C-alpha cells in the first residue's frame, strides 16, 4: 500500500465525521441551540428582566437586593479615573501573585516529577501548607510584611500556587515512558529531557492549572484587600458595604467578575494561539 493511499483513507474518515447534515427545514430550536453566543445571552437578559421586575414589583430594599438599574447607577457614583485606579491595584496584585506562583511552582514540579526522594519528602508538606486556610493567615502575613503590595502578592501566591504545582507535576509525569527511553538511548542531558520532552508534554496539564490559578489569583488579591488596603476593588466593596451603599458594592462585584472572565479568556487564548496542538480535539 502506498503512502498516498494511507492518508486518503484517514482523510475520508475525517470528512465523514465532520460533515453535519443540515436539513433545509431545520427546526427553530435546533438552530438556536447550535448558535454559540445567542442562547446564553438570551438567558442572561431574561434573568436581568425578571430580576429588575421582581425587585420593583415587591419593592425589595436595595440593601437586600438592588435592581440591575440601581447597580448600573452604582457605577456612576465613582469617577472613571478612580475605577481605573481600583482595577489596576487589584489586577496588579493578582498578576504578580500569579506570575510568582508560576515561577516558584515550576522548579518544585520538576523536582517532584524527577525525584522520588523529593516527592516523598516534600509533597506531604505541600499538602499541609495547602490545607492552611489562607484567609486566616492573611492578617498574620500583613503584620509580618507590612501594608504595601508585598503581603498582598504573597497571599495571592499562596492561594494560586498549589493547583499549579499539582497540574505541572501530573503533566511532567504524563510523558509516554518510550520517549523517556528514547531520550536515555540518545544519552541526552536531563535538562534537555525536561525542556524538549517533559515540559511540552505537560502543556495541556499546565494550562488547565493556569486556568484555575488565574481565577484564584483574583480571589487572592481581593482577600488581601479585605484585610488591609486603601485601594482596589476588594477594598471598594468592603468600604461600600460598611456605608450601606449596596448598589455600589454590587457594581464592584460586576467589575471583579469581568476581570476574572477576561483573565481566564486571556489564558485560554494564549493556549489557543501558542499551543494549538495541546487543545483537546473539538467535538462538533
Amino acid at each position, binding site marked *: 500500500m502506498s503512502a498516498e493511499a494511507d*492518508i486518503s483513507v*484517514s482523510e475520508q474518515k475525517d470528512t465523514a465525521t465532520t460533515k453535519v447534515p443540515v436539513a433545509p427545514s431545520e427546526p427553530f430550536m435546533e438552530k438556536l441551540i447550535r448558535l454559540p453566543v445567542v442562547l446564553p445571552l438570551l438567558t442572561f437578559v431574561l434573568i436581568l428582566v425578571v430580576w429588575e421586575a421582581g425587585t420593583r414589583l415587591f419593592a425589595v430594599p436595595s440593601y437586600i437586593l438592588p435592581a440591575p438599574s440601581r447597580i448600573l447607577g452604582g457605577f456612576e457614583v465613582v469617577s472613571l479615573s478612580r475605577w481605573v485606579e481600583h482595577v489596576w491595584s487589584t489586577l496588579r496584585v493578582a498578576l504578580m501573585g500569579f506570575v510568582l506562583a508560576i515561577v516558584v511552582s515550576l522548579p518544585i514540579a520538576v523536582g517532584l516529577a524527577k525525584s522520588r526522594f523529593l516527592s516523598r519528602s516534600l509533597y506531604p508538606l505541600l499538602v499541609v501548607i495547602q490545607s492552611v486556610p489562607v484567609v486566616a493567615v492573611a492578617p498574620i502575613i500583613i503584620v509580618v510584611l507590612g501594608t504595601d503590595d508585598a503581603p498582598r502578592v504573597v497571599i495571592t501566591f499562596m492561594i494560586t500556587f498549589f493547583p499549579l504545582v499539582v497540574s505541572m507535576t501530573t503533566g511532567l509525569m504524563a510523558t509516554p515512558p518510550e520517549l523517556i527511553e528514547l531520550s536515555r538511548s*540518545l544519552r541526552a542531558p536531563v535538562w534537555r529531557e525536561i525542556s524538549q520532552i517533559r515540559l511540552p508534554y505537560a502543556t495541556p496539564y499546565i494550562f488547565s492549572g493556569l486556568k484555575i490559578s488565574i481565577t484564584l489569583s483574583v480571589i487572592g488579591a481581593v482577600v488581601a484587600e479585605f484585610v488591609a488596603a486603601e485601594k482596589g476593588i476588594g477594598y471598594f466593596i468592603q468600604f461600600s458595604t460598611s456605608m450601606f451603599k449596596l448598589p455600589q458594592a454590587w457594581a464592584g462585584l460586576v467589575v471583579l467578575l469581568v476581570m476574572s472572565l477576561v483573565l481566564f479568556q486571556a489564558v485560554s487564548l494564549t493556549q489557543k494561539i501558542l499551543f494549538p496542538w495541546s487543545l483537546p480535539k473539538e467535538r462538533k
Partner: protein
Amino acid sequence: MTQDAISFSEAGQTFRTDSGPLTALSGVDLSIARHEFVAVLGPSGCGKSTLLRMTAGLIKPTEGMVSVFGLPVTEPRDDIGIVFQQATLLPWASVEDNVVFPAKHKRGRVSRQDRDHARQIIATCGLAGFEKRLPGELSGGMQQRVGIARALFLNPDILLMDEPFSALDALTRDAMGFELLRLWQASPKTVLFITHSIPEAVILADRVVVMSERPGRVIANLKVPLSRPRDESSLRSTEMQEFMGHLRGLLIKDKVA
C-alpha cells in the same frame, strides 16, 4: 573475522517488584550476525521487550552478559536505533522535526545537513510531501513510518523493533512489513524484531527465535526456509505452512506445560 552484532550469553533479568523478585528472562544464549534479520517470537510477558531493552543498554542484565560488536553493553550506544510499539511521536512537532529530533535532543541543535538528511529518510520511508504535517494528522501506519524514520536518522547499524506494527490494522500491518523489508534490503541493518505474530516473523526474518513463557528462555532458534525477495504468496507453500505449524506447536506446547 566475522563478529556477532549482538550476542547474549547466559543473560537474565530479575526485576525487584513490590510482590518480590520477578525473573523476566533467564539463561538466554543467542547470537545475531551483522545484517541479519532475527524475529523473536513468544507469548506476551515472556520478557521479549526486556531482551530488547538490555540490547539497547537501557537496563543492565542481572546475570550473564549482553554484547554488541564484541563489547559488553554498559550504556546506550549511538549505533542502535529503536522503534517502539506505539510510534510515540512528539505531537507538537512536524514529521520533519520528529525525524531530526535525535540530533536536536542529542546535540542540542539541528544543522542544515541534518534537515537534508531527514528529508531524504522521510522520502525513503514513503512520506515525501508530509514533512510539515503534524502526527495527529496522519494515520497510524504513517505515524509508525515516522517512528521508523526517526530510528534510522542516526544511521544505526542495529535496529531494535518492539512489536512495531502490532497497534496497526491487519492490512496496514502487512503493507508495513513489506515496506520494512524494502528499506532493509536497500540499506542492510541488523534487525532484532519482537513480535507475537507467527506469519509476521516468518515473512520478515532470516531466523526465528521462539521464547518460552516467563521466565523467558530460548526454546527454539530456526532458520526460515524461504528465499528472498518475498511477497504475499511466499507463505502459501505447504513447506511454509508446515513451518508455521511447527512454530505454533512450539508456542502452544509451552503454554500447556
